[in-house]
């Protein structure tokens, strides 16, 4: 396989303030391949947005990368000059946010904003930049693009604004498109259209996409690979089928059991307790206090990350070969009885 576009190696990020240290990420690793759509799931506070901020190097002043590396096309980004980092934001990696209204300038026309983005990233000016802006609007499925160019953001529906945001992100022809909860503010029918659009441009342009969401339905719809985060650690990563049909971490299993599946009306199985506080991480597995299947060792020792099947990794003691051997022996004994 060719080199991944993005390689995150053992990344740790903490926020330091008067209250002490908040370990937002503790040793997160994953690869993003060219043309791949990676979904990141996890509950509020699990570190999804901080991971994106670390990649784009836009952590606020209290936040610091305390360990690990981020490699873009094999290059260690921590060695880059500020100019190179700035060029990366946009050309290397563009981001779209949950609420397009906060990222669009209400006082400028759509046309002005997109042509500015085109000029900034490609150097194209005047007629040429205008042409490219119209092309981008067409690419994101806006009907009547010439008219749209003259409109202001408030004249458009939420779904159209999100399309404009995507058009602007594409102006630089980025290698990576990051979408942090891109459809949370949208209705289901519009959400479906935006997800369809993301799939379509990935197929057309071959860029890698990271979609952050806590809606498992959205992840199942569009992602190739899925990363599950809990309390700043990776629980599990695998293909969308691995994660939804053969989960190997108790947190993933818990998440899947807690949503209605649209078929049975059996009682939902919530995950008990409340999310871990990253200011007071437990000594062992971060999920241990809420885990119904916890072993003694989960309380005291961090689980290792293991490849449970090709390309499918999980960080749970229950996958430990010794433990599985023990289970098997138990099974055998049960048969002898």
């Amino acid at each position: 396989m060719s080199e991944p576009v993005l390689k995150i190696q053992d990344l740790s990020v903490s926020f330091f303030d008067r209250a002490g240290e908040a370990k937002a990420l503790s040793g997160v690793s994953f690869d993003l391949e060219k043309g791949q759509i990676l979904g990141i799931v996890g509950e509020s506070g699990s570190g999804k947005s901080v991971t994106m901020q670390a990649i784009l190097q836009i952590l606020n002043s209290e936040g610091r990368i305390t360990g690990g590396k981020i490699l873009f096309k094999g290059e260690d980004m921590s060695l880059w000059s500020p100019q190179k980092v700035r060029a990366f934001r946009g050309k290397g990696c563009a981001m779209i946010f949950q609420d397009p209204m906060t990222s669009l300038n209400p006082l400028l026309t759509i046309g002005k904003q997109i042509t500015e983005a085109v000029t900034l990233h490609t150097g194209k000016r005047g007629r040429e930049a205008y042409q490219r802006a119209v092309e981008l609007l067409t690419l994101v499925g806006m009907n009547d693009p010439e008219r749209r160019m003259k409109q202001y953001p408030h004249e458009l529906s939420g779904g159209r604004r999100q399309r404009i945001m995507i058009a602007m992100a594409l102006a630089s022809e980025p290698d990576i498109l990051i979408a942090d909860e891109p459809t949370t503010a949208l209705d289901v029918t519009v959400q479906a259209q935006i997800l369809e659009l993301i799939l379509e441009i990935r197929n057309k342009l071959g860029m890698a996409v990271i979609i952050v969401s806590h809606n498992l339905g959205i992840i199942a719809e569009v992602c190739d690979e899925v990363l599950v985060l809990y309390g700043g650690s990776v629980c599990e990563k695998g293909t969308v089928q691995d994660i939804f049909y053969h989960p190997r971490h108790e947190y993933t299993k818990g998440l899947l059991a807690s949503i209605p599946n649209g078929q049975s009306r059996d009682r939902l199985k919530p995950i008990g307790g409340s999310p871990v506080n990253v200011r007071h991480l437990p000594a062992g597995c971060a999920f241990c206090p809420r885990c119904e299947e916890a072993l003694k060792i989960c309380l005291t020792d961090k689980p290792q990350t293991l490849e449970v099947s090709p390309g499918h990794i999980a960080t749970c003691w229950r996958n430990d070969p010794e433990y599985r051997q023990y289970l098997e022996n138990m099974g055998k004994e049960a048969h002898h009885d």
Partner: protein
Amino acid sequence: MTEELLRVEHLKKYFPKKVNGKTVISRIVDDVSFTIRAGETLGLVGESGCGKSTVGRTILHLHTPTGGKVFFKGEEVTARNIQRLRPSMQMVFQDPYSSLDPRMTVEDIIGEPLDVHHLYKSRADRREQILELMSYVGLNPDFSGRYPHEFSGGQRQRVGIARALAVHPDFIIADEPVSALDVSIQAQVVNMFEDLQKKLGVAYLFISHDLLVVRHISSRVAIMYLGHIMEIGNVDEVYDHPIHPYTQCLLSALPLPDPDAARARKRIELTGDVPSPLHAPSGCPFRTRCPYADEQCATACPGLTERGNDHAAACWKF
């Protein structure tokens, strides 16, 4: 069959709106009718702005209805008797962060409706009722002296529900009660709603745009579009055999947490935008986006007609 608890007949709520100095009428809820039986849950779904919350608020006279009638246990709800009826009809709001007074302890938040309606004999009785309500909704009674900010989103939602339950309602309107919560916490709150219904026999109008949660919790469901109910009936009937093109489209867009099924199914694409309630189309409200619409659809609004198996739809074509 269980008794009818709430009957909504041709409910209308119009808001006047100033456009370029002229006052025009915005028809937010237009001719909505349904019934809810004691102890059952009616789900109300539809996209943002279609008028779901306005239906809820108008039933409780938080908005004065522009037209139509609401009957509660056979008695017509009016501006005069709403004060007396309100303890039996409660509302729980979407946002667990802004709907609780941050300066009040949880004990006083839950106790407030008891104070308003004089529902205790002594201070000790008041306190006892509050602690019982807390344990009902799964809150640790030891935390009664705490303030809302010391609780998580799911716990705050429980406080809001305990407060609604304080006056022993027969009917609760729950307006997006789980939307702001993480999935694992959502499940806890959904289960709690179900448990309370089993234990206390409360009926719910459960407003949500999460179609999966609505299917799970409801016995019946109403699909709303631009102030109108397009389809209503038994939840499995409507989800498995949708009649109205809008319902079909909505269900086909629902993100399924099952990758193979999600990829295999066919989506029905909707073109255009929801019209503004200020420029609602003549005839069927959905006709401007409906692939099957013809002249008939533009001339008259199709009312809900019964299609059998507790299932009604408002469509000329199907």
